[in-house]
């Protein structure tokens, strides 16, 4: 539930309510950066995301470390599912 996974900001959309495109475990997805409005991320920054919202900025080294651990433990599948999101396909 409190799983947070590292993602890299690919693109920001100025003018659009805190929307950002990120890449996370090889998947691109839109997230919300509204919780980082005090210190907004730039393209190329790494963030930890939880339920589609960026929670905090982290260093690239930290992010890669954590991704490496996820992959090694075979938990990347779970992370990927979480990242892709589901439930909207049938709407």
């Amino acid at each position, binding site marked *: *539930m*409190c*799983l*947070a996974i590292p993602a890299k900001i690919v693109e920001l959309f100025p003018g659009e*309510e*805190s929307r950002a495109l990120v890449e996370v475990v090889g998947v691109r997805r839109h*997230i*919300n950066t*509204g*919780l*980082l*409005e*005090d210190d907004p991320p730039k393209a190329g920054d790494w963030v*930890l995301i*939880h*339920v*589609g*919202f960026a*929670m*905090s900025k*982290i*260093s690239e080294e*930290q992010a890669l*470390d*954590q991704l*490496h*651990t996820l992959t*090694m*433990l075979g938990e990347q599948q779970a992370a990927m599912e*979480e990242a*892709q*999101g*589901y*439930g*909207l396909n*049938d*709407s």
Partner: protein
Amino acid sequence: MKFVDEFREPGVIGKACGEIRRLADPNRHYRFMEVCGGHTHAIYRFGLKDLLPPNIELVHGPGCPVCVLPMGRIDDGLSIGKDPDVIFTAFGDMMRVPGTQGSPLEHKARGMDVRIVYSPSDALELAKKNPGKHVMFFAIGFETTAPSTALILMRARALGLHNFSVFCNHVTIIPAIRAILDSPDMRIDAFIGPGHVSTVIGCRPYDWIARNEGKPIVVAGFEPVDVLQSIVMLLEQLNKGEAKVENQYKRVVPWEGNHAALKAMGEVFELRPYFEWRGMGFISQSALKIRSAYAEWDAESRFHVPGVRVTDPKAAQCGEVLKGVLKPAQCKLFGKECTPERPVGALMVSSEGSCAAYFNYEHRKNAVLTSIGA
């Protein structure tokens, strides 16, 4: 064993374990509570328990949002979903949690429009796409998740989106820790503090645990080395006779927390006078309610819910396990009537629930580092 060779820093793990053995007094029994379900998962997943000396006991805390939700709230949420115009949405974790008449997934099988969402934003999008329907989001989670729900409610109000509401079950971690410390059958020496909750609330709210209760607390990350290192830090404090709040997870957790997230929560939520927790009874000021300015998006004020208190099945001992009084395998139903495939209690559903974590990794001997023998 196959992971061990590749493991990022087996040397560091071995070192931390050596440090723990050096610091732990063999004549003393230590009880450390990991508050967060994410830590419980990590501890079983990696088999960390086996790396610790036997006199260090890890007690699993109440920090699994799915597990602490009493059954009556699940029934209440599902009662709203019975309206054919309502789409019931929730995180995947919630889908197999049993209510009195079955889980959300079982209700779906009987025809209820139940959808899994990955993010509260997805629920909002669903409402936009289905103007003829009402989309209700069954919100759960501690302070890690509550700010996201707050932002979504602010967005729904800004958009004037009237076919969307939130059934709010957000809870707060501090009163739960207080309830554990106040409970007479509980003896805890120190706490491993929640990592991701603390990215939001920061480290200050734990001050009283150190200052008034005299218990050390270390906010910790989720990798094996993080958990072991936080145990080293706790032992160091205990050996020096100190009790303070320390932050092992500095790379992610700012001491002051996330101001923007706290602001959003303050805008949308207020504290409920009391809220029921599974197995722990009513805890005062332990949960969040949607403020009246947002009443239009509050499912509890828009819909009539039964609000009936439902007790768990008699043989289930989820409450004792949640409070750390019993270990998962000591529950009479564990591994028999209650398994991850056919859960009786919520602790067997969520991957952060101690029963599921224990069953999947300890019982099935799947833990990653068990044989490192560091």
